[in-house]
Structure formats: structure tokens, C-alpha cells
């Protein structure tokens, strides 16, 4: 089912060729992301009659893929392999790549992409290792959006090749190297393909963005209330999907129960925890030239801007303070809450049935639970355009792990959680934890740096460990938790989150951080901060110290720790042969 590189026709100097919506420049691997897109296009072609609706157009936006031979030639002809072997800092790598020339034989093709495309394009990394290992390297490599609004071809060409070089350079950035190191022995050196793809959306003055972007999974690793894992989960955001993949606030719902209210305490809580900013491609006056910044052509905007653009109409409800409730739509004044109620409650758009069908068809075609990415564009008077941006099989552990309820209270339990994520078991002899007496929210960036150092040493020694800390791991907001990147904790096989108050209970399942939890089969234990029995701090304190920094302690345990999570019951426990 998953296509091969040679199945993709050669680029014929036209990006928007109706007969050739997907094409390739160069040879070699297409990488994981491109293969997912090709699979998506094939599913659409073969199952169009099952998926099509009169009120919705489903397509894979036009794209071409630069195969990994372009990457190889770029490195070889510019002598960049010697440079990257020295592992210089990210700016040094990025600058050297920007100064280098792309292989001459492909420049004409890239120029014709720029000539043809007067709309924003996404240059997305598509790693060959993702393909080889069969798991996504989420958020590890760069993706760059370019506006396509420069009036002359040369300006568009320049931003396109700068973006391609940036994606190539990101293969050797610190975070990517650390990630690969943590992934253990790799079957081959990393090579990068690049997907150059039309961005789905509409222009509103000086910004361009999809009305809605989203991630849908046919398997829900974290079901809430009556939802079942097999019913799947969908996450929606206004604007570009960057909000979701960065782990920002977005709206999650079960496609089987789209009207089910989220598990939050009150409407006021919703006001605080839902999306309040969104990302768009800047198509106004050129921003300061900065080819080394991933967000060079992006802007993050407040909801008020979307209100002006008219894009909140299907996405927001309005808070009515008098009745302390939300009224779907934006027909009245008041604070807006992005709960997508006009679509989910009133069925204003056929999104939910279309997604349900798409998930089911993709599951049938790939023979496994799937994850899809999509974006919606709503042009007045026209059918909804649903851009199908990715499909990939999900790694769902079927291992039968039993964690009985009484085990949580057993004296051997070091950590006990009734809200664990994942499914499976690990064994470790090292624990890295933030010492409870020293933790303060304002210190989280410093704590992240301390953890990075300990992680590096443990990864190099090949010792997996259990990580315990406070608040949401990987949070972009340092007040909500410790803002680590994945590479800073990549050696952890179990992560314990002592939840902070005022925090959304569910981690975003579309985020890079969540993808990596799944990819590396990391067990994630959420425990209440105040619970006396959730973490046995005194037992941890009695273990032998290996290193101790200002806020973080690394201990080596006398006996192995067994980490177990039962995905069905969501019970998780860490047990030790306590003396």
C-alpha cells in the first residue's frame, strides 16, 4: 500500500498540473512525510466515490518532493559533510548551508516551482530515517512556510531555495542530532527529502491561513468519559496546524461524540484554556530578511484579528456572562471561545462525518489505526475544501499489561497513577527528579537546562531512566510546566508529571511531544501534585545520589524499577523491590 519513490512521476516544470498533482525532483528516498502524502493521494484516488460529498471537496494539495539525491549532492558538492561532522552550533550550520549552492541540475525545476506558485508554499522536511524506521520524527526537523507573494519570480525563487537549504540544515541542528543519538543504533545515516506543497487557506489582507487545521487519530490513547480508544480523537485549531504540533491550546473531541463537553470544571476555565492566538503566513510587506528563522514568514495573531477576517464564524462560541454559558457562533458581543460549536454542535459544516469516513477508509487501506492531518478552507458560496495533508499508521501497543487497582496502594509502589498514558512495560535503574522542596514555576527554564545535562550523560552511557517533575512536560509555556524540548529528555523511558493546578488535563495528542512519547513507547504517568501516595519521595531520597544540581537529583536505585502502564484501565505503576 505504501508507495515507492519510483511510483511518483518526475516533476515537469509545473507545480499546479492537474494531471500530475504529486511529482518528484531528483531521485533517492522520498522520506516518511512524502510517502504519507503519496499514500493519501492514492487513497483519495481509489476511494473517491466513498469519500466524496456534494458539499465538500477533498484533495491532497499540489506538491513536489525533492528526493534525497538532491540532499546528498548538495552536501557533497559544497563540501558540507566535513563541516557537519564537527557538530558546530546551529547558526554555523544554517549559515554554511545558506551560503552553499543547490545542485545545478535541479535549479531550473525549482525556479519553475517559484514561477508557477503565487500562493504560500510549505517546505516540509521528509526524513529518510522516518521512512526506514517506520515512525515519525515529530518536530525534529525544520519546516518553513514561504509567502509566494513577491511579484517577481526571483524573489519567490530566493525564498524557496532559502527554505530548502534551511530544511537541509535542520538535519544537523543540535536537537536533531540529540534525537538521533537517543534513538539508539540507526540503520543508516539520516538523509532529508523536502516536500514543497501548496498551503491550504485563504488570504485575508496581509495574512493567509486555513480556516481550520487539525489532526485526527482513529485510536485515542487518552479517552475521556464515555469515549472509547477505538473511536479516535480529533484536534482542531484555527489557522495553521503549527498551534497543534507545537502543543498549543487546541480543541479535542471524539468524532463519535462531537457534542460531548470537555472535562473542565467550568465555562470560565474554558475561557482560559482554549486557543486564543493563531498562526498565519505573512503575505504583507516583506519581513526582515532572516533565512535562518523557521518563522521568518509566519505571524502569530490574536483572535480579534480572526474576528475581523470573519474566520471565527464557524469556530467560536460567545461567552454570555449573564447566564455563565457559551452560545455557539459570534452573533453577539462577548468573549470568544474557540470550541468549534457551530460545526460540532450545529453541524454547520460536514466536517465530522467527513473525518469519520476518512479515518475509517484510511484504516481499511493501511490495515492499522491511523493518524491524519488536514486543513479546511471555506470560501463563500463554494463547497468546503478539505486538504488532506498526511496519513500514517499509528503505533498502538497491543501488549497485555495488567495493573490491578490494589497495586497502586502497595508498599512497593514508588509512583502510582490512575491517569497514565501509553501501554507497556520498561525497566530502569536510574531516576532523575526535580526535588519537591526546590521547585517553583519561575525556575522551570533553569530546571530544563539542568535536566538536559543529566539526560546527555545518561544517553551517552546508554542508561534509560525515569523522569519525575512538576507540571506539563514539554510545555511551550514555562508557567505551565518544564519547557523541555524532546532531545533534552530523550533518554527517559518513563515520565511522571505531578500536575499543577489550572492545567488542562489532556496533553495535546497532535503535538510533537506527544508523537515522540508514542514513537519511543515512553510511559507517561500523571499524578495529582498533592497526593501523598502518588510519588514516594522519601524512598527516592534514600537512594544513592549520582549527581545533584541546584534543582535536580539523579539517583541510581539499589534494585531495578519496573514501569508498567495498562492502556485499557489507564492505571500505571512504578514498583521497586523496596527494603
Amino acid at each position: 500500500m505504501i508507495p515507492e519513490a519510483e511510483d511518483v512521476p518526475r516533476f515537469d516544470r509545473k507545480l499546479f498540473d492537474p494531471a500530475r498533482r504529486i511529482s518528484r525532483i531528483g531521485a533517492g528516498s522520498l522520506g516518511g512525510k512524502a510517502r504519507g502524502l503519496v499514500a493519501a493521494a492514492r487513497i483519495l484516488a481509489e476511494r473517491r466515490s466513498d469519500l466524496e460529498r456534494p458539499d465538500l471537496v477533498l484533495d491532497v494539495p499540489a506538491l513536489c518532493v525533492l528526493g534525497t539525491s538532491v540532499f546528498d549532492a548538495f552536501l557533497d558538492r559544497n563540501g558540507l559533510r566535513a563541516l557537519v561532522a564537527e557538530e558546530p552550533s546551529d547558526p554555523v550550520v544554517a549559515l554554511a548551508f545558506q551560503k552553499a549552492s543547490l545542485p545545478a541540475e535541479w535549479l531550473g525545476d525549482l525556479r519553475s516551482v517559484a514561477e508557477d506558485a503565487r500562493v504560500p508554499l510549505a517546505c516540509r522536511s521528509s526524513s529518510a530515517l522516518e521512512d526506514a524506521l517506520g515512525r515519525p520524527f515529530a518536530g525534529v526537523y525544520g519546516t518553513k512556510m514561504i509567502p509566494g507573494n513577491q511579484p517577481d519570480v526571483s524573489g519567490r525563487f530566493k525564498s524557496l531555495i532559502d527554505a530548502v537549504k534551511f530544511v537541509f540544515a535542520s538535519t544537523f541542528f543540535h536537537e536533531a542530532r540529540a534525537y538521533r543519538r537517543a534513538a539508539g543504533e540507526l540503520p543508516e545515516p539520516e538523509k532529508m527529502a523536502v516536500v514543497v506543497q501548496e498551503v491550504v487557506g485563504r488570504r485575508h489582507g496581509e495574512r493567509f491561513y486555513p480556516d481550520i487545521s487539525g489532526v485526527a487519530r482513529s485510536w485515542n490513547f487518552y479517552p475521556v468519559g464515555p469515549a472509547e480508544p477505538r473511536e479516535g480523537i480529533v484536534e482542531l485549531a484555527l489557522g495553521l496546524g503549527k498551534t497543534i504540533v507545537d502543543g498549543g491550546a487546541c480543541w479535542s473531541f471524539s468524532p463519535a461524540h462531537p457534542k460531548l463537553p470537555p472535562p473542565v470544571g467550568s465555562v470560565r476555565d474554558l475561557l482560559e484554556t482554549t486557543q486564543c492566538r493563531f498562526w498565519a503566513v505573512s503575505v504583507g510587506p516583506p519581513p526582515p530578511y532572516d533565512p535562518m528563522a523557521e518563522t521568518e514568514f509566519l505571524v502569530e495573531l490574536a483572535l480579534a484579528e480572526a474576528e475581523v477576517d470573519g474566520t471565527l464564524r464557524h469556530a467560536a462560541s460567545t461567552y454570555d456572562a449573564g447566564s455563565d454559558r457559551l452560545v455557539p457562533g459570534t452573533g453577539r458581543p462577548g468573549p470568544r471561545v474557540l470550541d468549534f460549536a457551530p460545526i460540532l454542535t450545529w453541524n454547520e459544516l460536514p466536517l465530522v462525518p467527513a473525518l469519520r469516513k476518512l479515518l475509517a477508509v484510511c484504516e481499511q487501506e493501511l490495515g492499522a489505526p491511523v493518524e491524519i492531518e488536514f486543513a479546511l478552507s471555506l470560501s463563500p458560496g463554494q463547497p468546503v475544501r478539505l486538504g488532506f495533508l498526511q496519513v500514517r499508521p499509528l503505533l498502538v501497543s497491543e501488549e497485555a499489561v495488567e495493573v490491578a487497582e490494589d497495586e497502586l496502594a502497595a508498599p512497593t509502589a514508588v509512583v502510582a497513577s490512575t491517569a497514565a498514558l501509553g501501554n507497556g512495560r520498561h525497566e530502569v535503574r536510574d531516576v532523575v527528579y526535580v526535588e519537591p522542596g526546590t521547585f517553583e514555576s519561575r525556575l522551570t527554564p533553569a530546571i530544563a537546562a539542568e535536566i538536559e545535562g543529566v539526560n546527555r550523560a545518561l544517553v551517552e552511557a546508554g542508561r534509560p531512566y525515569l523522569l519525575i517533575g512538576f507540571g506539563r512536560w514539554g510545555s511551550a509555556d514555562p508557567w505551565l510546566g518544564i519547557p523541555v524540548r524532546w532531545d533534552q529528555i530523550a533518554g527517559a523511558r518513563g515520565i511522571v508529571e505531578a500536575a499543577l493546578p489550572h492545567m488542562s488535563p489532556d496533553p495535546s495528542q497532535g503535538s510533537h511531544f506527544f508523537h515522540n512519547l508514542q514513537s519511543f513507547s515512553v510511559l507517561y504517568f500523571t499524578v495529582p501534585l498533592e497526593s501523598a501516595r502518588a510519588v514516594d519521595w522519601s524512598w527516592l531520597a534514600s537512594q544513592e545520589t549520582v549527581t545533584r544540581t541546584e534543582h535536580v537529583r539523579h539517583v541510581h536505585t539499589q534494585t531495578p524499577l519496573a514501569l508498567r502502564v495498562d492502556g485499557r484501565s489507564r492505571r500505571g505503576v512504578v514498583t521497586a523491590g523496596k527494603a
Partner: protein
Amino acid sequence: MATKGANAFEMAQAQFDKVAAILDLDPATRELLRWPMREFSFAIPVRMDDGHVRVFRGFRVQHNDARGPSKGGIRFHPQETLDTVRALATWMTWKCAVVDIPLGGGKGGVICDPHHLSQREQEQICRGWVRQLARNVGPVADVPAPDVMTSGQHMLWMLDEFEAIHGGHYPGFITGKPVGMGGSEGRTEATGYGVVFTIREALKEAGLDVKTTRASVQGFGNVAQYAIRLYAQIGGTVTCVACWDETDKTAYSFRREAGIDVDQLVGISDRFGGIDKAKAKQLGYEILPGDAWLEQPVEILIPAALENQIRADNAPRIHGKVRLLAEGANGPTTPEADLVLQQKGIFVIPDFLANAGGVTCSYFEQVQSNMNFFWEKDEVLARLDAKMTAAFHATSELATKRKLFMRDAAYVIAINRVAQACRDRGWV
């Protein structure tokens, strides 16, 4: 490489006459385009290093400037003749027109052999050449460039003399300058790469995968080296290369069935592209007679040395496997040889299309020099690819549509454009 037989200018006129008939041009236009509009022939006295004065003969021919300033190289060659320069100037007019750049055709030369001249003597020739022509050349009149046995250094001497005479900076006077001194990125590679861009498109049309093809190349100068390099990078294999041996005063072909290594050969060649045959032999190359490159069992021949190399006497020796001939040099095939190529069913990418990458990039350099703002290499090469690819397909489409030989189709396009410009200006 020695030039044998045909007079190049007579050949150029014969080619023109043939196409003028196809286009049914009126007599005045024919007369105008058959001959150069202006010719300069002059003496350049130079005091040699040993103290005596030697007088060199210099030329500049401006064939036609209806579409824009004349453009063409300056050759230093002991066998230079006015007729050769006339022919090359004529071909420059067609070359600029076929790739649709707003320039006319010119060419210049000096009868001399740089192998036997010191740097200082060559500098004096360059300065003397400009002193004779300073009022008849320039950014808006006639823009010279390097050619056979002239380089960026020669261009800088000429530029310096021109600027000294005119009292200002005129980087757009001349092209082929070194990068950083008004030169363009990508200029060195441009001609050779341009040849391969057209080969790539021709192979696509023929339904041939480049990876299954082999090529044999005549010449190992700048054009040939970059053509070999890019052709290998897109997957082809060059098995034979021929070049002039200055010591033996003859040419040799160097063959390696597994494919030649261009970097290896560059490492054992002199600055004029002559390969050291003893070292080549040590590296596993067979040393064959100079004409052997033509007889190789390959799909592609790339003559990239001098004119008149494929003639009626040697064309029948071209191997039956050859499908494509891309002329990297100017005028390498005589009209008689053309007939043999047609009989053999060989697809020809004519010189003024195949090697137009050089003048196209020269035009880019001129544009950049005139605005004193310089593009990155990616930008230059991408624009070059676009120009060459478009020109190839325009020619190929016309050839198919009107059932013309590729050379004739390219001439039809070019001559028609120039004739139209002459009519539009009211000249004819």
C-alpha cells in the same frame, strides 16, 4: 585542435542561404544578414620582453546589432583569420537570437599564440586591442568576452584600459570578469552546463534515461570539463575525451570504458586543457589517435573544441550507436557532414543553441554589471536552465512541426527574429 578544410565564413553563409530560402527572405534582408555590418582590422604593436617590437593583427567584427549591443568573445589563436572571426560573429547573432536575449552578434581576435607569450606581453596585446577599438565598443555598443585562450585576467586588462580611456567605471563593457571584480557567479560553468541542459531535454524527448547513456567528448577546456561534470552528475558516463597535445602538436583521445574521472584528468592537464598522456596512461586510460573520440560506441557525441572537426571525410566513421550530437564548440560540423548525420538519423543540437549558455550568462553578467548588483549562483544557474530549456523546446517543437533538421529549425527561429528586428527598425 587543427582546423581542416572548409572556410568557416563560407559555411556560415551557406547555412544562412539555406534558411533564407526556407523563410523566403527578401533580397535586401538577405544581403544585409549575409555580411557583417562592421569590420575592424588593425595592427597592435607590442614591445616584447626581449626589447624588440612585434606587430600583432587584431580583428573585431560586428555582424548585426538590430536586437541589441553586439556580443562576442575575443580569441587569441595563431590560426586566426578574418573569415573565422566573421563566421563566429554571424553565429553569435543567431545564438543570441535563438535564446532570445536582447543582443547582437560580434567576435574579435588576435593572431597570436599565448603559449609563447609572457603575461606582460599578453597584457600589452589586450590593452593595444582596446586602444584601437575604444570608441567602437562599450556597454551600449559592443560587449566583448573571453574566448579561445583568453581568460578573466585578459578581460580585466581590457576593462582597465577601456575605463582609463573613458574616465569612469564601466563594468558592463566586458564580460567574463572574475567573480568579485564585476564577474557573475556561474559564468565559468555556464557554457558546459548549458550544453548538458539541452542534452537532458533531448534525452527526455527521445525517451532515453540518461543513466543508460554514454558520451564521448572532443576537447578538455572549460566547456568540455563542465559539460562532462554535469553530465556525470545527472547520471551519464563519459568514456572518451580528446584534446590537443601542445608538445606533440597533435591531438589524442583518452579512453576508459568504466568512465573517465574528470577531477583526475583536470589534475594532470595544463591550463589550456591538454592532458599529460604519460600520467593518463598510468591512471589506466588508453591513449588513442585524436579522431578516435568520434568512433566510440556511445549514445552521445559532444564536440567541444574548435570548428570544422566533423567533416564529410570523418563523419561516416561515427559509430552506429550514436543517437545525439551536442555541439559544445562553434561550427564543429561542416554542412557536408550534416548530411551524413541526417542520413545516420543522429539528432543534432546545433552549436548556437547547445553552447548558448555562455552568452546567456554573459548577458546576465552584463545586466548585473550595469546595475552593479550581483546575484547568487543559484539564481544565475536557475535562470540559465530556464532560458536554455525554453530555447531547446522552441527549436525542437518547430523542427517537429515543420519537419526540419534541428540546425535548420534553430536558424529559422533565430534568423526570423533578427530579420524582424531589422524590418522593425526600418533598415530593410
